[in-house]
Every structure is written in C-alpha cells, then in structure tokens.
C-alpha cells in the first residue's frame, strides 16, 4: 500500500507557476503533512483563462483537450485556480457531449482522459479530511485557529452556467473547512462578488470601486481577514486596496496559508510568506495568538 493518502495530478496554471510563492510554499508543507503527493502535469499549456473564451469558443476546448490528453489515468486532477477549473470543466463538458469534437482532438493529441475527476483545491481538502476520518489517521501537532474571524471570498470562480453546476454557487464549502480548522466563518455580503478580473488591468478605477465594496463589506461585519482560493483575486484585491488608498484595510490570505497554520506551522517562522503581501497580515496573527 502506498504511503500516501492520495496521489494526484497537479495543474498549477500560469498564475501559480510564475509567482504567488506565498501560496505555493505553504501548499508544499500542507501536502507533506496531509500525506498527499502531487505530480505536476507534464508539459501543460495555458487553459485560455478569461481571454480565450472571450474571443472564440474553440480556444478553451482545444487547449483543455491538449491538457487532458496529457493527464495519466487513475489519478484525480487537482486545479488550484478557479478560472482554470471552470475552463477545464467547460472543455470536458464539450468533449463528453460532442463526439465529433472529441474525435477531432483525439486525432491530434491521442487519447483524452475523460474519466478521472477534476478537483478544486478545496474539494481536495474535503476529500483528505474525509479519508483521514475513514482511515482514522490523525495529523500531529494540530493547532486550531481559535478566535479568528474569517470572511470566505469565492470570487467569480464559484459561478458556473447551470449545465455545469445545477445546484448553484457553493455557499458552505470553504466555510466547512474553516470550521474544521477551528476558525469562525462570518456571514458577510459579498462572497461571490466578482473582483473585476482582467478589467482591473485596463480600467483600475472599476477594480478600485469593487475592491472597496468587497473589503468594506468584510471589515464592517468584523472579519479579521479575507480568505480566498484564487491567486488572481488575492492579488487584485490587495493591489486595489492599496491603490484606492483605503483606510480600513483587511489582509487577504490564501486558504493554503491558513491550512499550514492549522497543521502546526508558526506564523513567526514564515516571514518569507508574509513579505509577499502588500497588506501586512502579521498583526492579525499576533492578536489571535498564532504568532509563536
């Protein structure tokens, strides 16, 4: 039997590959402690992001077909970026339902892996917690994040057309993880509000307005921090908080960082994570007693 609880194919996506060390470093620690092994997808390409489907519907299907043809059989595919995840599921939907499209791309790239599940990073954490319960595995040195009020921000990555997700956007998925690791998810108005994504790069004033709305919403419900799984949302909100010169700033963290703190890492040991943040999150940890 394998020494790992789970082995998975990992598709980092362009954002997580070039930058976002503050999320990649804690993720490595979390995976080691949760006994999960990631194998990076071999020679993967961009999923098309928000620009591919904006100009031609074939682009995300084709790029997704090439990626899925690279995925080995028998391992779930884990995708940390919600936008990549949506493009992958869209691509898979078309390849599953349109035999002529599948035939066209199978002729180009060989067999396309349509059987292994595509998981989001929070699906993976749920899965691992469930596996751990079933096999009664315990994680050592766990330190619950007591007294930490967390506003969970999904961003638009949680929104899907109804054919792909008939039940609608998730409302308690990350919240359940936060409860499991000891924090308190606060109810707040904008968990699914888009941070304006790529429009931020062209019209910063729109992004500043939306970021002000979102961060003020979190601040007024008394959240200590915002947590998100999307690296792009994290960067965008943090940038716009600074460039809009907001007074009441709320630090924006990655889910991976909170998971690492729960699994026993000390915040004071990891100056190398916090130095990447434009809004300093260290006062929050000092207040919540997670600093050392």
């Amino acid at each position, binding site marked *: 039997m394998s020494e790992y609880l789970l082995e998975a194919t990992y598709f980092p996506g*362009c*954002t997580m*590959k*070039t*930058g*976002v*060390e503050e999320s990649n470093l804690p993720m490595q620690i979390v995976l080691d402690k949760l006994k999960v092994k990631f194998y990076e997808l071999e*020679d*993967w*390409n*961009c999923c*098309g*992001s*928000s*620009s*591919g*489907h*904006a*100009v*031609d*519907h*074939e*682009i995300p299907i*084709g*790029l997704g077909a*090439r990626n899925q043809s690279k995925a080995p059989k028998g391992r779930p595919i884990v995708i940390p970026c919600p936008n990549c995840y*949506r493009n992958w599921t869209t691509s898979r939907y078309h390849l599953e339902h349109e035999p002529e499209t599948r035939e066209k791309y199978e002729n*180009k*790239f060989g067999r396309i892996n349509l059987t292994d599940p595509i998981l989001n990073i929070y699906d993976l954490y749920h899965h691992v917690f469930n596996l751990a319960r079933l096999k009664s595995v315990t994680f050592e040195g766990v330190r619950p994040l007591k007294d930490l009020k967390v506003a969970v921000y999904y*961003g*638009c990555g949680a*929104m*899907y*057309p*109804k*054919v792909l*997700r008939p039940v*609608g*956007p998730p409302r308690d998925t990350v919240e359940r993880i936060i409860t499991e690791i000891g924090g308190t998810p606060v109810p707040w108005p904008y968990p*699914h*509000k*888009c941070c*304006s*994504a*790529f*429009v931020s*790069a*062209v*019209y*910063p*004033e*729109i992004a500043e307005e*939306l970021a002000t709305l979102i961060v003020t919403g979190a601040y007024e419900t008394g959240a200590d921090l915002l947590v998100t799984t999307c690296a792009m949302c994290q*960067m965008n909100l943090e*940038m716009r908080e*600074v*460039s809009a010169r907001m007074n009441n700033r709320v630090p924006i963290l990655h889910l991976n960082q909170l998971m690492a703190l729960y699994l026993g890492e000390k915040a004071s040991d990891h100056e190398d994570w916090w*130095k*990447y943040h*434009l809004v300093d999150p260290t006062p929050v940890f000092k207040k919540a007693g997670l600093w050392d």
Partner: protein
Amino acid sequence: MEKEEKKFSSSEPISMSQSDLGFAKRIGEVAGTDLNSCLTCMSCSGGCPMYPYMDYGPHGIMRLAVLGLKKEALTSTTIWRCAGCHACAAVCPMAINIAGVMDYLREECLHENLPIGDKPLFLFHKAFLTSVRFHGRCSKVELMGLHKLYTIGSGPKAWMQDAILGTKMILMRKLHLLPSRLMSSGISQVRKILNGTWRDR
C-alpha cells in the same frame, strides 16, 4: 471610466426594419440555450458587477437578441465590458447561459468585422493570446507590457497606469519577470489550436 447612461431609457421608438429574426435561434444553437425563455426579470443585470459601466446591460442584450437587432447588440460596449464572471448565468431563473451568449456575440463581432465597442479590453485579450502564442503559457509581466504597447496611442495616463505598483510587485518577486515555457513541440501544438480560431484585428 464614466458610468454610462442606459440606451434603452431613450424615448425613441425601436426600429425593427433591420431586424434579423433568426438571430436568437442561431445564438441558441451555438451557446446551447434558448433565448426566447428569457423573462426579462433583470436578475442578471442586478448581479452584474460591470452593469454601471455598460450601455445595455446583460438583460438589454437578451432583449436585443430576441428582437433580432443584431447590429446594436454586436457594436455595444456591454459585450466587451462583460468580465466573464458568470454571475448572470448562475442567477438566471431560466438557466440561460448569458455569459456564453456574450462570448458568442464577441466572436460574431470579430467575424463580421464590425466596430469594437471597447477597444482597450479587446486589446487585452489580444495581448493575452499573443503571450500564449509565444510561450504556450501566459506571462503576466509580458501581458502588461504588450497591452501598454498596443494602447500606446491613448496617451500618458495609460502609459503610467499602475506603473509604480507593477514595478513594486516585480521587485517583491510577487510577479516573476521571466515566463515559464512549454517544450517546443508543445508550443507548436498550442499555436495550431490558436490558428484559425479567432479573427485578429
């Protein structure tokens, strides 16, 4: 960016003489949804983060499509200012894939060579796909550089936009300066996928 006055609030009568009545049906075939089931409940516009900056809003585009007013729909700023966040599609009570319709309309606008409602946003998509064509993956720094190059005609405000914050983020190494690349065989496969899909301007 100014907030836009909505065009449907004008008192002018709608001219139907140029109307293309098969338009909604064709959109429905490509986007996989039936536009005639739209109730005009405006849930989509209510949830849309970009609604204040659009000239029609998503529900207005649905109306234009059903009425067959193709030219108005394809030249609107709405289709380009859509951020593709799918908030409209997720809230629609009739399960219309509104963001998918927007995708189709943008594609159609490029194919028919009609004027683009919001040029800088189109140039962003172009810069993105150029970056993907170079490396097979996207590089954020290169993307911003290309976009600045494409919009060089729009004046000093666009050149200096986010220059200080962007440089700071590169120096912090929050953004890597160098892109990650595919193997050369992979890049040629990605270029083959991109070739012959969208119509460049």
